[in-house]
């Protein structure tokens, strides 16, 4: 169920972000499906490979795409489990995403370009710093509910005996903020990175895929959108209503995804990106927010 919805959202997510940015800068802007049309154009093209790159460079776009797709299977939808669901499935979820990232990094190093190596080292550093935020947040929610899989955690978060809905929803809000910024970090958006820039020296993610072309590039770009929708659906899971009609949950899902896209677009319109050495600070700040969630859970459950 959820995977289908994620795929639908991925059709218009980046388009919505771009459209928001265009409207704020006083332009009409491209259609909402333009990014998708660009990707289709790329998918129809062949790829060019440099002579210095090995087979790793060729397989990575597919590996990257499939890891994100698999990760999407973990996410439940309201009353429905994800296709893959077991105890502590969120650990595998995080590391499947990390696996995709790992392959991306070695593919960048494989090209032998000094730019791509630079981007790879930045990406590795930032995803390493982002990891604690994810685990602390989801771990705290697990502690609150007493469960340990995505499905059980999200299903019982607002209905546990220990916390009133007011508290659980405010924790949910905080967790959404963490997930939103994690989504920005993982997708290299402003204020961490600038997806629109042409300046190789300032890029993080974009510089790693400089050598990819045609079908491979299309696949990587689409995976990026998919990843965004993935984080959006994690947020949406925090706000589903149990035991209600599924259409209402679908409506909640789409409105939250759209809200997510609009927020990203607005942020990108009115913010400058950070200086590179301030990024780690910012990402660690996410960990501190997640610690706040952890502290809240500890207090509620009476552990301290």
């Amino acid at each position, binding site marked *: 169920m959820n995977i289908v919805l994620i795929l639908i959202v991925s059709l218009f997510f980046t388009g919505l972000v771009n459209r928001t*940015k265009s409207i*704020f*800068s*006083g*332009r009409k802007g491209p259609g909402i499906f333009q990014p998708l049309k660009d990707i289709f154009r790329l998918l129809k093209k062949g790829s060019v490979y440099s002579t210095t790159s090995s087979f790793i460079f060729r397989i990575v776009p597919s590996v990257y795409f499939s890891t994100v797709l698999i990760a999407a299977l973990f996410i439940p939808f309201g009353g429905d489990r994800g296709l893959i669901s077991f105890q502590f499935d969120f650990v595998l979820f995080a590391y499947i995403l990390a696996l995709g990232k790992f392959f991306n990094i070695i593919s960048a190093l494989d090209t032998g370009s*000094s*730019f791509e190596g*630079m981007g790879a080292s930045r990406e590795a550093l930032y995803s390493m710093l982002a990891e604690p935020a994810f685990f602390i947040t989801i771990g705290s929610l697990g502690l609150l509910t007493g469960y340990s899989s995505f499905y059980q955690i999200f299903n019982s978060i607002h209905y546990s005996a220990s916390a009133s809905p007011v508290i659980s929803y405010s924790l949910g809000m905080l967790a959404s903020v963490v997930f939103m910024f994690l989504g920005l970090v993982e997708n290299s958006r*402003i*204020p961490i990175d*600038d997806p*629109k*820039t*042409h*300046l*190789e*020296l*300032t890029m993080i993610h974009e510089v790693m895929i400089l050598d990819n072309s045609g079908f491979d590039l299309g696949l990587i770009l689409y995976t990026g959108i998919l990843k965004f929708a993935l984080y959006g659906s994690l947020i949406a899971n925090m706000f589903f209503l149990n035991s209600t009609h599924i259409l209402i949950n679908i409506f909640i899902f789409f409105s939250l995804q759209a809200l997510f896209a609009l927020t990203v677009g607005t942020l*990108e*319109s*009115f*913010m*400058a*990106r*950070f*200086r*590179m*050495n*301030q990024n780690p600070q910012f990402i660690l700040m996410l960990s501190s927010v997640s610690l706040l969630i952890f502290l809240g859970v500890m207090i509620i459950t009476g552990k301290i």
Partner: protein
Amino acid sequence: MECSNNMTIRKYITVLNNETIDFRSIPVLEYDEFMEINLLFLKNANNHCVNYFGIQSDDKLILICCIANDSRARIKLTRTEVEFGQDKIYPSMTAKNLAFNMFEREICENFGVKYLDHPWLKPVRYPFDRFTKTSLISDYPFYHVDSEELHEVGVGPIHAGIIEPGHFRFICKGEQIIHLEIQLGYQHRGIESLFLQKNKLLQKVTLAESIAGDTTVGHASAFANIWESLCGYEPDEELQFVRTIALELERIAIHTGDLSAICGDIAYQLGNSVFGRLRTPIINFMQSWCGNRLAKGLIRPAVNNYPFTSELKASLLKILDDFEPDFNEMIKKLFHNPGCLLRLEKTGVVTYDQALEIGAVGMAAKASGLNRDIRTSHPFYQYKNIDHQPVIKHHGDVFSRTQIRREEILQSIKYIRSMLDNIPAHNQRNDILPQPQRNSFTISLVEGWRGEICHCAITNENGELIKYKIKDPSFHNWLALALSVRKNEISDFPICNKSFNLSYCGFDL
């Protein structure tokens, strides 16, 4: 003309901006004496070297050094004769004063003059007629460090944006830049020798317009000044008015475009699009005035083909009235946005001492507290009537250079408004310019938006050009960029580069 009477032997001659003198009246010194006196001039921070070049005369090389005295609006000229291509080795002035660095490299490259203690005589550009034919662009001697911890990053000559070619070689420690070397010369067109080959005046002035496309008015004005002065023609009030207005409009347009680009580099979308939109009406006004958005065709020696009519005045006033409030609002937003300030402040610092040492000019100098503005120090055109106060900032960072742009734009708008109160009548001139004077030397300094532009011309006994020397402000300032990025992060290089916005083709010639 004013001679140094206080000395028994005349060691140098002083001229005014745009003054033509007899070439033979520039005193010839022995090289040692020449070196000594020029180094002495530069001991005073009010003096700076505006041009230093060689001209071949039979088997000798004549070197001419032009030092501008900014407090007295005079330019001091000296010359010497050296042997070249021989075994004779000369001491270099660069060893004592870094301001001569690029000039001596250029002289060595073109004529093969050997220097004893020049730090590193690297190629400047790759002219067809260079002295050493074995030095190729493919074996440029980069500064190189053998180290396990440091790594090199090469950028260019082909860049991701549609910009001009230039190669940047960084030596980095992780994300930090230790050293940057800038290698230019990819688009050397031989402009200086083309000036001698093209016989028609129209060809020459068109060439001058294309020295650097973004400084069309600046370079064309410098050429027009030179030519009019050589021909003994005094530009009337209307010509001066037109050129002043054009120079200031060019300043507004390019500075606004730069602000947009600076915002683009820090991914501040709002500033990027608003400043981009604000630039358009200004260049469109140029189009409606002279048919070209970059003002090509507007500046011609001794003639004005595009009278500044009252309709143009009304439309320009309207454009400026619309421009100002939007500009002020946007610049306020930019300067009050903490995220933007974070990127601009303390990035790419050039200290006062560095700027002085390398002989920086224009915006790059003014941002570091060094007062270099030809409009005040060697006034020309209507700047003689305007009490121009240069905008000086003291931090030398990207933010200072951004602030200078804001204040210069507002200043230019003020000047244009005051000049529009009193538009000189259009003269239908039919003057045919006489032949340029014989055996003459002329120097012209113009403050373009980027900084001081210097053109020099020398004629022979038939009144034909035998040397035309161009110096764009970028010639001095590229080194300032290389110094500014040291100890900065490599990801901040683009914003530093944009804050200087130097010309590649103005350097490559």
